[in-house]
Every structure is written in C-alpha cells, then in structure tokens.
C-alpha cells in the first residue's frame, strides 16, 4: 500500500511550467526565436513597425534598428531579472501597432529622428513583455537570447522587404496590410479598454 501511495505521490510532482514555450519539445532557445512570431501582439507590432520603417527608406530603417536593438536588449535583461513580467504591456504594443499601421495606410513620412524613438519604444515593450517565466537561469537566458534574435531578424527582413516594395501594386499591398493590422489592433485595444 505504501509503495502504491508513494508511486502516486511521485506522479503528482508538477512538470516544468512552460509559460513561454508555445511549442513543446523544441527547446528554450528555439521557443524564444518563435516567441515574437507566435504572440499576436508582438508579431503585429513588429510587422507594422517594419512596414512603416521600410516604407520610409533606408535612413528610417537604420534609425529604427539603432533604437530597437539596444532597447530590446535592455527590455529582455530587465524581463530576465524579473522586472518586466508584472506590468501588462499588450495595450501599449497594440497602440504602437495602431499608430504604425495608420502611417503605413496614409504613407505619411514622419521626421526621420522619430524612428529612433519608435524602434526603441517597440523594442523595449517587446523585451519587457517576453519574461521567460519560472525557468532556471540557463534555459531562461537561452529563451531570452532566442527572443532577441527572432525579433531582430524579423524586423530586419520585413523592413528590407517593405523597402523593396516600390511598384504601385506593392505599395497598395502594404497599405492593405497596414489597414488589416490597424483594424485588428484597434479592435483588441478597444476590447481591453472599453469592454472592461
């Protein structure tokens, strides 16, 4: 009887809490890489920031990256230290998505220095909102490193693609994507603020 109870009690040991591992079995680093793509608010903010930066040319992309990378690193470090997970940052990311999406739709060219701030803002929010949960220091660091790499690569590639979209139909496609992103972010932003 005692052995049976012991075996049963062993079964009750909780398994590892994978708060930020959207796909099991691929390891913390690769989960981290996929994290910005699988969290809708992160993906939307990244895509729309990349589109608006690309639409405004190489100067805007460069400034955006220069603001984004250090702020993302800072946000991830703070999140890893446990300072980033308590505040709910999704509304701020959605607001950033709405603004970036509207700029894409209107194809308005804001002053270039604004892209430092836009990149830094989105990077910091993304980093802070990517806390790895209750992981041991090693896997947590791997997850954060993966998240940083995934987010920056995504911004890099999409901004480049957006910059290359120069034909009329390609610019129209960007506007359409901007309107879709803005509409989705507006609805969920409204859901968070108004429905509450």
């Amino acid at each position, binding site marked *: *009887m005692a052995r*049976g*109870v012991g*075996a*049963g*009690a062993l*079964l*009750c*040991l*909780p*398994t*590892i*809490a*994978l*708060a*930020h*591992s*959207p*796909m*099991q079995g691929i390891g913390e680093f690769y989960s981290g890489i996929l*994290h910005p793509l*699988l*969290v*809708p*608010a992160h993906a*939307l903010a990244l895509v729309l920031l990349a589109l608006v930066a690309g639409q405004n040319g190489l100067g805007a992309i460069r400034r955006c990256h220069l603001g984004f990378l250090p702020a993302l690193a800072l946000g991830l470090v703070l999140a890893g230290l446990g300072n980033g997970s308590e505040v709910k940052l999704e509304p701020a990311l*959605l607001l950033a998505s709405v603004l970036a999406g509207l700029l894409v*739709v209107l194809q308005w060219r804001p002053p270039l220095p604004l892209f430092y701030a836009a990149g830094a803002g989105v990077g910091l929010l993304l980093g802070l909102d990517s806390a790895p*949960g209750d992981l041991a220091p090693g896997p947590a660091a791997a997850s954060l490193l993966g998240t940083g790499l995934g987010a920056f690569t995504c911004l890099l590639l999409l901004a480049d693609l957006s910059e290359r979209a120069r034909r009329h139909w390609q610019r*129209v496609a960007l*506007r*359409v994507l901007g*309107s*879709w992103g*803005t*509409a*989705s*972010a*507006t*609805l*969920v932003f*409204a*859901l968070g603020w*108004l*429905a509450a």
Partner: protein
Amino acid sequence: MPMNRLFWVAGLSLLLASNVQAHSAADIGGGFVSGLLHPVLGWDHVAAMVAVGLWGAFLGNPAVWLLPVVFPLVMAFGGALGLAGVPVPSVEIGIALSALVLGIMIVLAARPPLWLAGVIVAIFAIFHGHAHGTELPEAASPLAYSLGFVIATGLLHLAGIGFGLLVRWPLGRIAVRAGGAVIALGGMVFLGNAI
C-alpha cells in the same frame, strides 16, 4: 493490483499538473481559424464584402484599393462602438441594406465621386464592425480572432476585385452587373429576414 491501490493511484493521477502555457498555440490557432471562418459563414457578410470589391473594381483606380482599405479601418471603429456598448440602431438591417445598396450600385454601374463611394462603404462598415465587435469578447485569443476575420474580410474583397476585373471585356461587364444583381437580390432576402 487491489482495488484500493488502484483508486489511490487513479485519484492522485488526477492531480497531475499540466504544463502552463501563457501563449497557447492552440488558443492562438483556434482563435485565428475561428475569426477567419466567421465572415465566411454569414451570407450577408459575404455578399456585402464581395460587393465592396466588385464595386471598387468597377470604379477603377484608386477606388479598387481605397474602398477595401477604408472598410476594415471603419469596421474597427464600428467594432469599438460595439465593445463600448454604444448602441447602433438596426445593425442587422444595416448589414442587409449594405448588400442591397452595393448590389444596386453594381447593377446600375453607378460611378459617384470617390469621396461619396468611400462614405457609403464606410457607413455600412460600421454596421458590420458593430456586429463583429460584440462577438469579439467570446474569442479565446481576441487578437488572433480579429486578425482572422479582418484577413477573411480582405480576402472576400479580393475575390470581388478578381471577379470585378472582368469589366475590361464587354461580356465580363455583363457578368459583373449580373453578379451585382444576385447580390442585390440576396440583400432583399436578408432585409426581409431582418425586418
């Protein structure tokens, strides 16, 4: 194994902790697919969305892309009104009217000024958005759901634009106007049901 041991093990197994997933892929995927299917499963939405694309193609550049860009933006505004609990009178009638009016516009090959076409589409987008917005809180992943239905809406516009591009040929023009007539007839049926 004696029965009492079996009960112990079975009972304790029920307490097994499962993995915690803050961003469950199933929730996100399910929310997205559910949102993607939502506009497609309502014939009144389908008819109106296709009509926006058809009319845009009929009006030519820049209406062909401007109307499908305006629609989701104003639809989001309508959705926000729905979420805020701001009442929009006769939402179902408005949705039915959107199919009827846009269908008639296509049948008549109406070419109003671009701003007027934009305003007409925007007014109807508020009704569609209001209907979607009130259903949003039930979604498992609201953002994935809203992305799904906005993309589905856009793809329905694209289907309308694709069909509408036939207006370049005389026979195609007749086919597009016939398509508008079918949409207008559908709108009359929806209106009858809504009233």
